[in-house]
């Protein structure tokens, strides 16, 4: 962040943005739209965290194959987030447990947080955007 701050020279205020993803992929357009907004935000050099709770954890499943339902498979895009300096990916432990999922089931490396730490992370954000 330090070299970025120098380049900004007062032009940009860096805020803490959390993108909160709570929907399964494909059944609604929220997951895909959320991902696209995150990629746009990355262009503005903000401090971005992506959080996956509730059915949102399903967005990160390995082995997704959308050929049969003829929609775009955007799950590989989560692996590209690192290239946009979006490296803070958090997953809610209880949501994983309620769906029988473990970190090994997910397509990207994430930090799994217990609910109290997730709550604190949310509370310290400047902006929370929910999908």
């Amino acid at each position, binding site marked *: 962040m330090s070299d970025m701050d120098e380049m900004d020279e007062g032009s940009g205020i860096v805020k803490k943005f959390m993108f909160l993803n709570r929907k399964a992929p494909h*059944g609604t357009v929220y997951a895909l739209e959320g991902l696209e907004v995150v990629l746009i935000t990355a262009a503005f050099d903000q401090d971005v965290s992506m959080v996956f709770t509730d*059915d949102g954890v399903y967005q990160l499943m390995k082995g997704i194959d959308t*050929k*049969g*339902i003829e929609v775009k498979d955007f799950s590989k895009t989560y692996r590209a987030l690192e290239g946009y300096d979006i490296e803070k990916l958090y997953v809610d432990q209880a949501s994983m447990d309620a769906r029988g999922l473990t970190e090994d089931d997910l397509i990207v490396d994430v930090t799994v947080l217990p609910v109290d730490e997730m709550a604190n992370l949310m509370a310290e954000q400047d902006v929370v955007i929910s999908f």
Partner: protein
Amino acid sequence: MLHIVNKSATERSSLESCLRMATKGSAVLLIEDAVCAATSGNAAAAKIQAAAADLKIYALGPDLAARGMAGRVLDGVNVVDYGGFVDLVAEHSNCQSWL
């Protein structure tokens, strides 16, 4: 009767409402986000397995695959493709979609 559920059981109450109303011998087809309920470890799995004693439970295969769930389907749940979906609709005299 064929009951069709398309909402995730961990987000909406559609599946629960469906299972409450479905009479013995009826068929329940899970499609779209609802297919996740028929996978091992899901919070709704026990409900699905209990319901399978009196109901025929189906899940749409292409929707399972699109959610990375093809290998996690519960025992007692029948996976069908789109042709099977059409057959189920044709076989039953009436159907209810729990939107």
